[in-house]
């Protein structure tokens, strides 16, 4: 597998440094590790938002640090949750009197590491809490699984909770808004080619020339099932039907996020979006706004996910609020 890297064990740090150098007035890296924070510390009266996870999802999460979104993003090794001490350094660097809210994607490792970091913060009298994003409808949410995964919908949690925090809301209020987004956001994804973790050197799964994997997550893990590849519209319909069956979107306004997995040309994402818009109109779902691009990637996986967020007046207003980050501006 060819990759534009220098050394396997330098991937994460050089990525974070490169990101920060792309926006030196807005971002900085903490010396203690791969932790990205805003260049200027935000006012003391604002709740600080911390997110993070394994690397390999760029621009998530460091690209969403900035006004109106995150205060800090902690990058672990590729596809590996950051460790509690790294997360704790991030929390300490941005903590305010108002407290810290961590936005965690629902993976066993991420949840455990963030919980340990929050325990460490509480020991030092930092007010810290967390929400767990679980928007992936491909995974059954039942007693018999770890629950649905957190995927591209996390970006909308960053956006909206970030706007709420910027308004000066309390930790409890920001958490409630983040949870409202989580309750109303659903995602499903697929892949036509896998991705390779640099340290592993081999793809996470193999796909034949005529195969696709439906229901993949964002870590190169296999999806729910494998099928013969179909036309784009048909694939998009499969994903949309699963999302629309999960919560009632009819008659509601939604934000649509067509997310590329890393190696999907925008051309193809627009082809998907062309179908999604028409299909939603037919289903009586009103599109308030649409985002098309690479927001939550899976290294060089080719594929996409569709995310729908059901809006109410509060979420609409916060979605429209100002954001100024390397990967999302509004």
């Amino acid at each position, binding site marked *: 597998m060819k990759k534009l890297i220098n050394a396997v064990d330098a991937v994460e740090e050089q990525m974070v440094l490169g990101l920060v150098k792309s926006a030196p007035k807005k971002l900085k890296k903490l010396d203690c590790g791969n932790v990205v924070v805003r260049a200027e510390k935000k006012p003391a009266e604002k709740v600080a938002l911390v997110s993070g996870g394994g690397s390999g999802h760029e621009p998530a999460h460091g690209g969403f640090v900035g006004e109106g979104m995150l205060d800090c993003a902690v990058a672990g090794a590729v*596809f590996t*949750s950051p460790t509690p*001490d790294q997360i704790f350094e991030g929390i300490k660097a941005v903590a305010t009197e108002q407290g810290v809210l961590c936005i965690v994607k629902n*993976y066993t490792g991420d949840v455990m590491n963030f919980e340990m970091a929050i325990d460490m913060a509480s020991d030092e009298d930092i007010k810290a809490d967390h929400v767990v994003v679980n928007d992936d409808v491909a995974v059954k949410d039942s007693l018999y699984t770890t629950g649905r995964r957190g995927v591209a919908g996390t970006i909308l949690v960053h956006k909206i909770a970030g706007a709420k925090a910027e308004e000066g809301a309390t930790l409890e209020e920001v958490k409630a808004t983040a949870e409202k987004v989580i309750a109303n956001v659903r995602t499903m994804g697929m892949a036509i080619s896998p991705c390779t973790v640099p340290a*592993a050197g081999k793809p*996470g799964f193999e796909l034949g020339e005529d195969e696709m994997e439906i229901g993949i997550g964002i870590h190169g*893990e296999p999806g729910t099932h494998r099928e013969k590849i179909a036309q784009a519209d048909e694939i998009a319909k499969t994903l949309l039907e699963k999302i629309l069956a999960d919560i009632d979107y009819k008659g509601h306004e939604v934000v649509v996020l067509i997310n590329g997995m890393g190696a999907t040309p925008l051309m193809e994402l627009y082809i998907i979006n062309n179908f999604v818009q028409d299909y939603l109109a037919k289903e009586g779902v009103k599109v308030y706004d649409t985002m098309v691009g690479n927001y939550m990637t899976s290294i060089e996986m080719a594929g996409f996910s569709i995310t729908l967020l059901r809006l109410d007046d509060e979420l609409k207003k916060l979605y429209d609020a100002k954001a100024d980050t390397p990967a999302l501006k509004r």
Partner: protein
Amino acid sequence: MIDAKKIIAMVEAIAKKIESEKDFLTQLDNEIGDGDHGINLARGFKSVEEKLPGLEDKDIGAILKGVGTQLVSTVGGASGPLYGTAFMKAGNACKGKTELTDADFASALEAAIGGIKMRGKAEEGEKTMLDALCPACRALKEGLDSGKELKEALAAAVDAAAKGMEHTKTIIATKGRASYLGERSIGHQDPGATSSLYMLQAMLDCL
């Protein structure tokens, strides 16, 4: 009696075993997880090895706690907090001790398992490391209770862990990333149960 030197030798043996089985563990994880179990554990234990010289003059509790903290801060993923907590809890159980009786050794293993259950909110039978560790701990205690030497009892524990690991091939994962696969996880051996078996084997080899 197990002294601090022996404990350090055991940790070194675990580190070597994990390094040599790194690719196999990663391959197992590729099948039902995200393919980084071996890579992450090897990275963690390599940094533990570097830290061990600084722990040599400490008591066993402090050594194990140091190993745990180092794992938590270097492994990442789910196995970092789980194995890290296991060593930290084992350390707690051996607080201030410079020598362990056979019973102390069993208590430390029991405390480690308690830590994994607590951190992972998991029980035996969910296709995790607990499926190797829990039967091993029972076999160890039974062996000691029936008057066996530690080496003999630990050998029985390793056998029980191997059986437990084999058993993970037949059950559905309900915890961790493999749970997303549902029934498709059947037929695959759990990487966590496998690394747990390796650790017990490495400890046995030191006796």
